[in-house]
């Protein structure tokens, strides 16, 4: 995707935050032939050059483009929810330069041709980079392992059954063991379907008051704890896609201390909302795993700050209005998130829970390292995936203005602070300018 035809671009006088080098200083960045040529304070004093577009970024932050490790796109099969084109537009507006799309499509991405299709389709239609995760089991049905080696050859970056947990311990054990040969990353959705049962929101007092069946956090921890035992026995690489409760954090901490090759993500929704946001049955806050209590939210934020949780994802799950305009129990899970992830994350910085560099790291370098991608850094020679954002610009989230095809945002009408001014993918400006 590197655009060698785009004119050279010099961004100056911005606050450069690059977690890979620990850089956090005012300066500039020079982009040429789709890669980063130079970075540093000295670029602010560069004399104008022929063929180089200069952009003053005073008051703004210059950071690596965001890498969103969990995005549901409706292609193939559910184009009414989201296409690569619309997802790309939304991602670019949200500062996301790489989307990792999930394999739970119709049909699921469980063989080489389907991964190949997605890669081609994304290349043709999507203005940001797309890397697919492949299904971990055939048909995402939880039974037979997919062709991990062949899928990797055509570009799968990890293996998961998307929003469905692989409950069969033997399947996880084999996948971890077999995956070792390919350095495969096994991504698990930690939610035991039996323990979730009919549960549609966090089990506890609030669910009881609303008369809604509860889904206990135990459903998550039971799977994670079991999987850690399997990981210890089998070796391999494991990533817990979404952590939502403090009990899971204890399990994760122990596993990391024991030296297991495990990483974890958290959705921006679980960092910014709690179960009370469901209010009077607001279906845009119906998620899987469900939003938990405020104590749990704070524990997640703290775990993210300390690095126990590695990655923030948007968990972008576009749902068309008809699947949300239902009673709470019947409504679909999921929230659109590409366009609001960064702004929502800045709320945590504003609240003093998180430093800006750590926020950026969790959305850029951390996922890139886990997925072995070259992005997520402003190092010289790295692909020029760069964003410029004003960390304070106020705006109101208006679903009508959103670029994604589905408007199911929990930030509906919310006041946000911080907005992307420019998104550059491989040297080419795809948003702002």
């Amino acid at each position: 995707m590197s655009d060698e035809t785009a004119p050279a671009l010099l961004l100056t006088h911005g606050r450069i935050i690059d977690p890979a080098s620990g850089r956090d200083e005012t300066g500039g960045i020079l982009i040429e032939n789709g890669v980063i040529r130079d970075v540093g304070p000295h670029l602010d004093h560069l004399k104008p050059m022929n063929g180089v577009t200069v952009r003053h970024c005073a008051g703004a932050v210059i950071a690596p483009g965001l890498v969103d490790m969990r995005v549901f796109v409706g292609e193939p099969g559910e184009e009414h929810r989201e296409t690569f084109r619309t997802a790309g537009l939304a991602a670019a507006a949200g500062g996301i330069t790489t989307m990792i799309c999930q394999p739970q499509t119709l049909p699921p991405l469980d063989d080489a041709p389907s991964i190949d299709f997605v890669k081609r389709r994304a290349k043709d239609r999507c203005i940001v980079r797309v890397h697919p995760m492949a299904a971990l089991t055939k048909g995402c049905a939880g039974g037979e392992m997919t062709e991990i080696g062949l899928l990797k050859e055509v570009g799968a970056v990890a293996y998961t059954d998307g929003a469905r947990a692989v409950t069969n311990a033997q399947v996880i054990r084999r996948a971890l063991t077999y995956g070792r040969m390919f350095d495969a990353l096994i991504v698990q959705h930690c939610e035991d379907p039996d323990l979730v049962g009919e549960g549609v929101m966090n089990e506890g007092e609030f669910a009881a008051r609303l008369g809604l069946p509860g889904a206990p956090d135990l459903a998550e921890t039971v799977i994670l704890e079991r999987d850690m035992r399997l990981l210890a026995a089998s070796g391999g690489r494991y990533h817990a896609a979404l952590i939502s409760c403090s009990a899971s954090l204890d399990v994760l901490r122990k596993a990391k201390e024991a030296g297991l090759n495990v990483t974890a993500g958290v959705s921006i929704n679980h960092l910014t909302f709690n179960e009370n946001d469901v209010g009077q049955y607001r279906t845009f806050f119906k998620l899987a795993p469900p939003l938990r209590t405020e104590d749990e939210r704070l524990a997640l934020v703290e775990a993210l700050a300390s690095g126990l949780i590695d990655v923030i994802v948007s968990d972008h799950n576009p749902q068309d209005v008809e699947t949300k305009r239902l009673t709470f129990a019947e409504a679909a899970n999921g929230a659109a998130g590409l366009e609001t992830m960064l702004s929502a994350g800045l709320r945590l910085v504003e609240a003093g829970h998180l430093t800006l560099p750590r926020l950026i790291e969790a959305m850029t370098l951390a996922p890139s390292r886990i997925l072995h991608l070259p992005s997520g850094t402003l190092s010289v020679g790295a692909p020029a995936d760069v964003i410029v954002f004003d960390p304070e610009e106020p705006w109101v989230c208006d679903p009508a203005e959103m670029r994604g095809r589905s408007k199911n945002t929990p930030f509906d009408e919310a006041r946000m602070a911080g907005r992307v001014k420019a998104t550059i993918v491989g040297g080419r400006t795809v948003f702002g300018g």
Partner: protein
Amino acid sequence: MGYAVFETARYMGKTGAAVKRALGLGSFCLYPIIFDMSINQPSSYVFPHKHLLGIEGLSRPDIEALLELADEEVILSRQVEKKKTSLRGRTQINLFFEPSTRTQASFELAGKRLGADVMNMSVANSSAKKGETLIDTAMTLNAMRPDLIIVRHHAAGAVQLLSRKVDCSVINAGDGAHEHPTQALLDALTIKRAKGRIEGLVVAICGDIMHSRVARSNMICLAALGARVRLVGPTTLMPAGIERFGFEIFHDMREGIRDADIIMMLRLQRERMHGSFVPSTKEYFRYFGLDDEKLALAKPDALVMHPGPMNRGIEISTDVADGAQSLIREQVEMGVAVRMAVLEALARRLPNG
């Protein structure tokens, strides 16, 4: 006074002197006082809500005003001429997404006694099966310009959702495991008339607390009126977080109903059984079914209630259900009165009302 004598006589005739003592005549002597108050001072209270979606959100004066109004409706319902005109010209739609006999009949009678045109719609076997959503149904009905819609739905929050899409007043006739406000009001009215008061009474709500909207509405309503509420049921049929509601919780029925004034039994939702919550109805009856032996642990003048329909031999024995201490038939009568009161209170707020 004539009524009180009749009522007491009926109890005496059926059960003899022991029960007369047990029930305490004093409580029945309050009836005429309530009559007089309501007849002489027609309530000028204006109900401050457009809809009745739940007991949650009602204040104690709201509840008491409805009960007072309902007392008047009881008088009306006992006359030969049972008609009023307060809803004349109004259209009432009973929209039931879940089968119901008694609640629907009760609302229908209530509306007709107040002079409304009542239409019954059982959606369980029409549009819903054709894929029409709740909101579509609401919009369709709204276009027919009803004044009051009574809704029962199998999903919690459904009535709230519907109320946001229509212009008329909406009454919740039961939404999933959430609320069933008119049931709680009729239960409160029944208790108040039988005991003369609610404040300070020990009320044990027993059985499947988890799946029961009747329990939800009743615990809020009774607590608001000053009763001491106990929740009694098997551990697996208590929702998580219930301990934070602030009520006493018992898993031993004998302890739970000891010295209670009112025992409110809940229907065991057998369709939800299948060995997953309790092993069998036989075992359930053994530990949580109300029979004479367990009832003897409550106060001698304790009264037994059940929202119906009953599973005889599962949560309640036939002896108790039909016995002298049972208020179950009174509940049904109060149901019509309370629903009339609710319809009337909401109708007063309707445009041109």
